């Protein structure tokens, strides 16, 4: 078993600290399949219903999803992919070259923590399906804390299984997830079609009227804020902000033959997000407002629906826990990776016990993107702008620094400014990513000018900087 695990870890660690060689590049098909699978996750069963709960109107939802997901695809294609295929480095190594080892360690801890919470929400989603045969009391919209012993036992059971699989079977589960992807998308669509007659939709022509009057009515549930077109568009754009604008997918797209493969994210955004969020919204309306994913899928698609929720939660929680383990392990390389993953799995499972994580998922996802976004802005500026200003790209690597103060201050200051805007000005977290990016970009340019002038030493050899694509 040890040998198998070591082999798997070696495979994952390929080219962690060097560019991916030409012979290992992948074709477009790999990315189309991967994006479609990655973005049909357990959390989609929660996001769609939460739009309903927040009182989005049907026109706002459809237009918002169209605009937001289009912007997300363009962000992958024009911001992340071109840098990925020029450098062919992982996000972590690219950041280390710019920010230095210590700052990247800080980033990794925050990243791992975010991954834990994200995986926790997926475990909770899977648990709502596992608990169906045992008639376990599921948490409701208002529940912030665990509401029954049955719920806690179910979450612990699901969390334990997912953690063990994350330790032993990353490769297998990743392949299994790819097998599940086309089937899952069809289950989402089928479940929605099957309950449409219950809502009074008996023809394509009657859909729009019922959609406005019974599904996305524009009336939020008591205690939840009202969402508009802007909320939907910005949420759809920034739901994966950490991956595109935040540059997380440098690690994936570095395998792409061409930067245009960034457009492969279209499958994830439009087949995954758009269809899944619309379908799960319809299921909620058919379940008279109940939003617990397992039961609503079971009501509309029977056992296959419950299996879909379980698999959707499981297959996405698994690599997320694994990635969190990798992030932490890079900080403490002497500790065995399986031990790190075990601890990460435990933290994730404890987080999953709290329904607040699921019920406030939209806020958490927005916060997740916001926290990691400044580093994406730093990479972008470092790649395109810094060389044009006569400054050094990959500064930490060039001067052998372990902490690029300009990058560190940019990260912290951007977050403080954004959170202040949220706290003092009342600007909702969904809208802070866009101004936040420009704040981070401006700060990094200004601070780099000051910092690099102070730190310049004659022996430093300028690293090869990259030109625009």
């Amino acid at each position, binding site marked *: 078993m040890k040998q198998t695990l070591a082999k798997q870890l070696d495979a994952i660690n390929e080219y962690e600290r060097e560019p991916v060689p030409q012979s290992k590049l992948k074709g477009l098909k790999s*990315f189309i399949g991967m994006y479609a699978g990655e973005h049909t996750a357990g959390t989609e069963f929660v996001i769609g219903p939460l739009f309903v709960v927040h009182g989005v109107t049907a026109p706002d939802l459809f237009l918002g999803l169209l605009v937001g997901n289009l912007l997300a695809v363009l962000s992958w294609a024009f911001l992340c992919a071109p840098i990925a295929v020029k450098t062919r480095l992982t996000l972590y190594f690219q950041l280390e070259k710019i920010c230095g080892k210590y700052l990247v360690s800080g980033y990794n801890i925050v990243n791992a923590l975010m991954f834990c919470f994200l995986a926790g929400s997926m475990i909770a989603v899977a648990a709502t399906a596992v608990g169906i045969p045992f008639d376990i009391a599921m948490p409701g919209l208002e529940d912030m804390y665990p509401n029954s012993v049955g719920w806690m036992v179910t979450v612990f059971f699901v969390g334990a299984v997912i953690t063990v699989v994350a330790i032993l079977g990353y490769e297998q589960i990743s392949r299994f997830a790819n097998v599940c992807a086309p*089937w899952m998308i069809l289950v989402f669509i089928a479940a929605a079609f099957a309950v449409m007659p219950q809502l009074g939709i008996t023809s394509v022509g009657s859909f729009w009227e019922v959609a406005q009057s019974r599904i996305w009515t524009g009336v939020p549930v008591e205690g939840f804020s009202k969402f508009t077109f802007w909320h939907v568009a910005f949420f759809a754009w920034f739901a994966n902000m950490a991956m595109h604008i935040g540059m997380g997918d440098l690690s*994936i797209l570095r395998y792409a033959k061409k930067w245009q493969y960034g457009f492969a994210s279209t499958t994830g955004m439009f087949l995954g997000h758009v269809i899944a969020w619309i379908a799960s919204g319809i299921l909620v309306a058919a379940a008279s407002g109940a939003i617990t994913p397992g039961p609503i899928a079971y009501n509309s698609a029977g056992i296959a629906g419950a299996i879909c929720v379980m698999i959707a939660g499981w297959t996405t929680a698994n690599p997320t826990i694994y990635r969190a383990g990798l992030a932490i392990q890079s900080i403490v390389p002497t500790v065995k990776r399986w031990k790190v993953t075990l601890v990460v799995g435990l933290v994730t499972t404890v987080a999953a016990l709290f329904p607040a994580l699921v019920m406030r998922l939209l806020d958490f996802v927005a916060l997740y993107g916001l926290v990691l976004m400044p580093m994406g802005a730093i990479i972008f500026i470092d790649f395109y702008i810094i060389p044009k200003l006569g400054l050094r790209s990959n500064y930490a690597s060039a001067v052998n620094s372990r902490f690029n103060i300009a990058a560190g201050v940019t990260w912290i200051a951007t977050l403080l400014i954004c959170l202040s805007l949220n706290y003092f000005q009342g600007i909702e977290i969904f809208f802070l990513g866009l101004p936040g990016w420009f704040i981070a970009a401006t700060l990094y340019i200004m601070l780099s000018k000051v910092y690099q002038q102070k730190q310049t030493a004659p022996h430093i050899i300028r690293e090869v900087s990259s030109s625009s694509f």
Partner: protein
Amino acid sequence: MQTILKILSFLGLALTIVPSLLVFSGVIELSFHKTLMLAGTLLWFFTAPFWLNKTKHPEAV
């Protein structure tokens, strides 16, 4: 063999989606759709892993 497996897999996917369209059209009941969907699910999972996903995907680390 591969071809037969592929045909069965696509039959499984068809059984997953088509019954819901029949419910939508008022041809079959919701409960029958659930049974057919489960059959389609089983068919897919017992056949697709043998031919789908033979090539490795890029590492998502």
